[in-house]
């Protein structure tokens, strides 16, 4: 079911002064697979994302992204915006970061900036309204519509993103990341603050993305119904160190994991 290896994290270490937030972490994420990164608060999960997406330069480590047999991208040497555009890593944030005063549709259009920019040829073709640019703009709107349909927000396309309810904002952020055509989608606690029904919808959306787009998904999540329900592979962090990794079923029985993290919430996990 899962595809070729996509992301290699090797010996990733991130220090903030004396604090070791991530400590010699190695793992792999595959195409068409959901890889969950879990761990207690402060375990260093978000820091891993920040290293992957170029917000922090890692203290030590190699981060390699390989798309379909191409030469890999060495992420630790790239600037954040190039990682997103060239290597194709899109992410969402633990505290939602939409463009609140722009409309829902505009949010999705900004995600397609690089393509539209190329079509607008330094804005000249755009200013003149040449057919090439107009076609690209139509294509971008169609792609935005596709994702609006998938997250069920087509009706609210022209409303300000900041006026959406919380759950809709979370889904919109995922759709925005997907409009950037990523090879790897990094989701930082997408189910935080969602109710049970919205969480079920999120699971369905992520499974749909995995099946139709066949991209890799890295998922940070505390909600065990999401982690156990949809992930193919789980990496468990504690104090920045990987303490276990494997299939969901194996993780819920792993004594180290239970001790570090699952123990308190084990009861909430659905049977899988």
């Amino acid at each position, binding site marked *: 079911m899962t595809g070729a290896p996509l992301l290699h994290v090797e010996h990733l270490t991130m220090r903030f002064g004396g604090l070791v937030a991530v400590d010699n972490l190695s793992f792999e994420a595959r195409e068409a697979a959901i890889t969950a990164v879990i761990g207690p608060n402060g375990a260093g999960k978000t820091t891993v994302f920040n290293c992957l*997406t*170029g*917000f922090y330069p890692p203290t030590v480590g190699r981060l390699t992204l390989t798309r379909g047999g191409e030469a890999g991208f060495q992420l630790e040497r790239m600037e*954040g*915006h*190039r990682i*997103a*555009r060239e290597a194709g890593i*899109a*992410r969402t*944030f633990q505290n939602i*970061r*939409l*463009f*609140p*005063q*722009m*409309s829902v*549709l*505009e949010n999705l*259009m*900004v*995600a*397609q*900036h*690089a393509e*539209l*920019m190329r079509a*607008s040829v330094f*804005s000249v073709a*755009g*200013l003149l309204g040449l057919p090439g640019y107009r076609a690209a*703009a139509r294509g971008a*709107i169609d792609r*935005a*519509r596709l994702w*609006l349909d998938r997250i069920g927000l*087509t009706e609210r*396309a*022209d409303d300000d993103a900041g006026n959406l309810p919380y759950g809709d904002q979370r889904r919109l952020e995922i759709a*925005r*990341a997907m409009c*950037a055509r990523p090879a790897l989608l990094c989701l930082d606690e997408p189910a935080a603050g969602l109710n049970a029904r919205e969480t079920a919808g999120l699971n369905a959306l992520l499974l749909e993305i995995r099946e139709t787009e066949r991209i890799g998904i890295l998922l940070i999540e505390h909600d065990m119904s999401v982690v156990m329900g949809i992930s193919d592979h789980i990496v468990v962090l504690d104090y920045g160190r990987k303490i276990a990794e494997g299939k969901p079923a194996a993780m819920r029985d792993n004594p180290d994991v239970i001790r570090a993290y699952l123990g308190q919430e084990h009861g909430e996990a659905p049977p899988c």
Partner: protein
Amino acid sequence: MTTAATDRETPPFAAAAREAALTAAVALALTGPMIGLHAASQATGLVIETRWPEVAIAVALVFLGRFLLALLGRAFVWPVLAAGLAVAGGGLFVPFPNALLKAVCVAGGLIVALRAALMLVRPRMTAAARAKPALAARWVAPAAGAAMTAFALLLPVMPFADRQLLDLATLVVIYILLGWGLNIVVGLAGLLDLGYVAFYAVGAYSFALLAQYFAFSFWEALPLAGLFAAMFGVLLGFPVLRLRGDYLAIVTLGFGEMIRIVLTNWVALTRGPNGISGIPKPSFFGAPFARSPPEGTEAFHQIFDLAFSPMHRVIFLYYVALTLALLANVFILRIRTLPIGRAWEALREDEIACRALGLNPTSIKLSAFSLGAMFGGIAGCVFAARQSFISPESFSFIESAIILAIVVLGGMGSQIGVVCAAVLLIGLPEWFRELQDYRMLAFGGLMVMIMVWRPRGLLSHRDPTVRLPAARETPP
């Protein structure tokens, strides 16, 4: 200072009176020394005069105003409306020792009446009515824009358009151009630039120096002035655009001052504080506006077989400024809907999210900065042509502050808002020059009033740059 608890115990009039008395006491403490004592120079030297009647009137006005507002808060809407109008009307006819007090009395009465009227109107607006403005704004803005454009185009043929008014209108248009330029930087890209006047100066001096040393005409210098200013924008932008918010504001402020100081001190090139004079006016596609043109050229009035009039030149310059402004407007409205325009706004909203989506913040900021600078440079070129004489004095920090005020008061990102604010801030103070020193006071008061009532600017409504078209039928 009255809490809900005291309200229940004391009758409303007494509570309002007490609140007003308290405010009046503060006013007395302030106005006593500031208005009551006046140092006047007489033959015998400096003496202190007292102006107690003025103090009494000021305190009474404060008491009355606060009293009415307090009553308004206690739902006496109709009596307050009547009283406000009575005070305003009465103020017109009652003799005051001082024109300013009269103005305060009339304006205060009107404001109280206005607030009462607003309270009458507001509750009647249902939710549906409140949702309407968003829909209405879709055609109101273009309609207002068209009306303003028509008025601006017809202004020179209006009966009241004399030379002075047209000259002022040209200045207002220059400031509109500046406002639109800065609007790209501050309103759209969200970069607080306090040194915008630097680009205005670069544009103006580009034209002045090119004209002086290389005999460039207005039309030859215009594109170069825009280009030089844009280049300065890039030059300044590279080092400073990684700074954020306040830091960026401080550095740009410093840059603005630097340009002025260089212009003042580089005497060999710019003649320093003496400025550059004799800057040529734009010609009508080569035909000058002169009574007796130089050998071999035909003047404007000769080509069109008109009697020579110095007004032609003024009108032409107005139209030149207006045309440039309209072109800039079309350009900005259009570029806003392009990916680069949306990227500016996205950057203003959340730079981190932008980076995560593959937008390069530095190049996007740089494009906003240099485009804004370009419009500043073009405005500077027109300004130099209007004045015929420029000196570093015209490009002090206060200019940056005024342009920024135009953008902020107009409503960040709003094109029409900038026009309204420019007319208000540039046009009105010039018109009311007779008010002399009170002019600046009124100017400040106006700004405070706008900030109190419309904290997001006169026109803060934002329309999306793209709307989802109705779904297209997909053939099976």
